[in-house]
Every structure is written in structure tokens, then in C-alpha cells.
């Protein structure tokens, strides 16, 4: 079980499908350390011990120093901290690892270079190769957990992205053999961007994809976020889902000061964490809140 904690929705990049994209007329907010600690305390009180910190891409507002400062403060609350932010070079990942970051999530969004160029029209994220190499750089820098993913609803046919994602995972299992790997296949959700795919991936197709990933990657984590509807999420768990969030807010400050800033996308599963944990138990699974402790790492 993990919880997303959005630190900022400021972004200098334009991804045409994202509600945080530069230029969109949305309420923007970047949390102070005190605000992110309040959010962290809220999540900790709900049982979370693993938090995923997210920001848009803003070199000045949410750079390595900003992240290091927030991670340093939140370490007192969470034994496991992951990041889903802009991609960095190896030295920058090393600094983040030293600050206490255990995991890094980098979705390639689409593996097709042409589609990638079409959806990522401006900003740092335009560099396809730099993004693709992010997980390996993070691994070399000592980050312990890697997450990769493809955003379903960008490239068509989506199966090409699914195959590329599996190939990327198989490659990482060889070159980043010390790292724990998880894959994710989020579907596009409504957002302030107004983007909606022409041929959305259906529930049936997503279930097929989860099965296929489980067969190709039997020991790899599979993430299912609150983008999906409650009943559907529960039904996917026995097919091989291993990581899940619950009660998520995608707007900075959304747990303790909701409504002050725009969220990245709409969540579909709004159940409280304990409700999701109960649903997992009812299916015969153990909800694991804590699975790692940064205290193990010397020097952290």
C-alpha cells in the first residue's frame, strides 16, 4: 500500500494530455516543507508508511534541492519514500538517494518515438532518450526500487506500447538486477487538458494486459492506482496486482487543504485506505503497509 503526495503542480513542460501542462489556466500550488509535513502526518495517521512524492517539471521550483529538503523532512514519518518527478542525471539521482529516496518511478508514457514527439511538445520531457535512460541512471546511483509504465490511451495500437513496456522491464531485470521493479499501465483519465483518446483501452483489454504482464514478468510488481473504478480494481488484484494506492488526491495539499489547487487527473476509486485494505483481506490477500525501512541503509 502506498499513497501519492503531490508537492507541486507547477510545470514548464507541455504534455498535451496532462492537467498540469504549462499554460493551462489552473490554480497552481507548491507546498512548503511545513505543508508537506501536514500532508504526511495525515497519511501516516491512515496507516501509510510508503509515500510517493510527485511534482510537475519545474527546474527552479521543484529541483533536486527542493526535493531533498522535503524528503529529509518526510523521512521522520515514512520509512519508504519514492519519487515520481522529472528525470535526472546520475549525480542528481545519487544526491536524491543520499537524501533518503528509495524508489523512482518514471513512466515513458509511450515507447513509440513518433507518438512521444506528438504528445510532448515542449519542455525537458521532450527528450525521449534521456527519459528512457532514467531508470538505469537511477539504478546506477543506488536507488533501490524502480517503477516504469506506459500511459494507455496515447499511442495506438496500445499493444505496441504494452510489448515495449515488457521489453523495457526485461532489459532492466538484466542491467538493474539489484533493483526491485514494478510496472504500471495507467489509462488516461479526464483532466484539465481536455484530452481524451479516440479509442480508449477497454476494461477487458486492460485485464488481458495484466494477465499478459504477469505471465511475461512473473516476479515483477504490478501497480494499480485509483484511476480505476473500485469493483474493477478489486477484480484485477487476483490477476497479479501487487501495489496499490487508496484515498488518493492528485492536487498539491489535497489531503489537508482540498480544493486550493487543480489535480493532475480525476481519481475513480475514492474509497478510504482502510476500505481498500478490507477489500484486499476479503480477497485473501495481506495489505502490506510497511515493506522497507530506510534505517537499514547505512548513512541515511
Amino acid at each position, binding site marked *: 500500500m502506498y499513497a501519492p503526495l503531490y508537492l507541486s503542480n507547477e510545470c514548464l513542460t507541455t504534455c498535451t494530455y496532462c492537467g498540469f501542462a504549462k499554460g493551462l489556466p489552473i490554480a497552481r500550488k507548491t507546498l512548503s516543507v511545513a505543508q508537506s509535513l501536514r500532508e504526511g502526518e495525515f497519511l*501516516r495517521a491512515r*496507516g501509510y508508511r510508503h509515500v510517493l512524492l510527485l511534482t510537475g517539471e519545474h527546474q527552479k521550483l521543484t529541483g533536486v534541492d527542493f526535493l531533498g529538503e522535503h524528503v529529509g523532512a518526510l523521512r521522520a514519518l515514512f520509512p519508504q519514500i519514492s519519487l515520481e518527478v522529472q528525470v535526472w542525471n546520475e549525480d542528481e539521482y545519487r544526491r536524491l538517494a543520499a537524501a533518503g529516496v528509495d524508489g523512482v518511478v518514471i513512466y515513458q508514457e509511450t515507447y513509440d518515438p513518433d507518438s512521444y514527439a506528438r504528445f510532448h511538445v515542449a519542455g525537458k520531457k521532450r527528450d525521449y532518450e534521456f527519459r528512457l535512460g532514467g531508470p538505469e541512471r537511477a539504478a546506477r546511483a543506488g536507488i533501490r526500487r524502480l517503477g516504469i509504465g506506459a500511459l494507455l490511451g496515447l499511442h495506438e495500437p496500445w499493444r505496441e506500447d504494452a510489448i515495449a513496456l515488457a521489453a523495457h522491464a526485461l532489459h532492466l531485470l538484466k542491467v538493474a538486477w539489484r533493483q526491485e521493479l514494478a510496472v504500471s499501465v495507467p489509462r488516461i483519465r479526464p483532466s484539465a487538458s481536455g484530452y481524451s483518446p479516440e479509442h480508449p483501452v477497454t476494461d477487458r483489454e486492460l485485464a488481458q494486459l495484466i494477465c499478459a504482464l504477469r505471465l511475461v514478468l512473473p516476479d515483477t510488481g504490478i501497480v494499480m492506482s485509483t484511476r480505476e473504478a473500485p469493483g474493477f480494481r478489486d477484480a484485477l488484484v487476483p490477476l497479479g496486482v501487487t501495489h496499490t494506492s487508496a484515498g488518493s488526491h492528485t492536487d498539491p495539499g489535497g489531503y489537508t487543504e482540498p480544493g486550493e489547487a487543480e489535480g493532475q487527473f480525476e481519481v475513480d476509486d475514492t474509497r478510504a485506505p482502510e476500505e481498500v485494505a478490507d477489500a484486499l483481506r476479503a480477497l485473501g490477500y495481506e495489505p502490506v503497509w*510497511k515493506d*522497507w525501512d530506510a*534505517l*537499514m*541503509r547505512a548513512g541515511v
Partner: protein
Amino acid sequence: MNGKLEIAGRAFASRLIVGTGKFSSGDAMRVALDASGTEMVTVALRRVDLDASGGPDILEFIDRNRYLLLPNTSGAIDAAEAVRLARLARAMGLPDWVKLEVTPDPRYLLPDPVETLKAAEQLVADGFIVLPYCSADPVLCKHLEEAGCATVMPLGSWIGSNQGLRTRDAIKIIVEQASVPVVVDAGLGAPSHAAAAMEMRPRRRRPSRASWIRSDLRGDPCTHTGTGAGRVRDARHRSGCLSRSGQTCRFSRSRRLRRPDRATRGCPS
């Protein structure tokens, strides 16, 4: 299997060590532990609230008066992490028994022989009772034994694979050569796998290994200090090191290997 299993001077009526993962709830785990008859329960330290700050914690469901809690270092990728984790556990009041796991590869969770041995030496020197999870490698098991480990715990097959005793032939050699209890640690997926492991006996007829350990402990102490009463605690006590009175040191682990030419080899004094 009528005799008791003895590890580091402590007797266990059950030869089953039970884990704490994959239960749907703490209560389900409590019932399962009760039904198993086990006396030793291993718990992953990475899942325990090490800062003891409250909140959901697996330890609440384990009766520590009834079971020996065996903290394990799963998730540690090198010796330094395993040692750090064991020390943290001890600092928070957990027993100084430790199931040593050093698994840099998170996929198959295969133990790192080099780092496991390094960690074992350090933890034994720190006074821990060390039960190391290791490859089914007879030579490594002898090294671990000589480092002062209270058992060796070779894998039957990869963790979680349920494939049973794929390493049977190597485990036979380990059992044949061991002077400490051999615990098959991973890959068992059916009661018959566990039964097959327990049926592996040394070829020569001899007293149970547990009683060897007890006879080792009967000798008087050697000149080496830093030992705890009744425990094999100091890695410096090598096979056959001698006590002041010329007998095998009671902390020496291989009384049967007592030979004059080996008597002082490896002894720290």
C-alpha cells in the same frame, strides 16, 4: 523425530519455524501459529515499525512468551545492511537471535554467500545467535559453522517457488558434514517436502546433532573471553580450541574434530 531440536543451548519440541508473511490478517496469523505447534516465529524486520512509533505492527499478534521471535534481515542487500538491521532490532528490545538473510537480487532472493559470511562473522562477534539463510553449498556451510553460526539454513529451492528439495544432493552433504543443526529454509511447498527434509539423516549412525552441541557445552570454558554462558557466541572459538585444562573449549563447535594438530589453529589467543 522424537528428540528435541537444540539450537545454541535452547531446546525446541517443534522442528518447524514459521514465517509471518502472506497472512490475510494478524488474527489469521495468530491462529495459524497456534495450529502449527511451532515454538519459533520469524519476522521480517523491514515490516516492523523500527522507530516504535505506534500504528499497525505485526509484533502485536505474536505472543512473545510463547514463541521465540526470530527477527530476519530480509531486504538487506549486503553485510552492512544486515548487521545494521540486526543491531536496530536488538536496540528496540527484540531477541539477539537473528535469521540472517542477505539477498541482493530481489527477484529470486538468492543469498549472497560472500556478504552472508561477512555479516555472520560480525554478528557472532557482536553476540548474536546467528541462523544464516544460505545457498545449499557444503563448503559455505562449513565456513558459516566455523564463523560461529548456531545453524546453517540452506535453501531447498528458490524462495516462494514451492518446488521442494531441488538441492537434495547438496543438502545431504551438508547434513553429513554439519556439527550444527541444518534447517532447510526455502522452497518448500507441501508438508511432504518438509517431511522429506526431516528424513535426511547423516549416513553414519551417531547421536543427534543437537546432543553434540550439548556435549560441546559440557567442557570448561577456554581462555577466550567475551562469551556468554551456554552459548556459542564468539567467532574466535574455532574447531577444537583448548580450554585451560587441556579439554576442548566448551564454546568450540566441533568437538568431534578435536585433534592435537588442530587444537590451537585459528584460536584468537
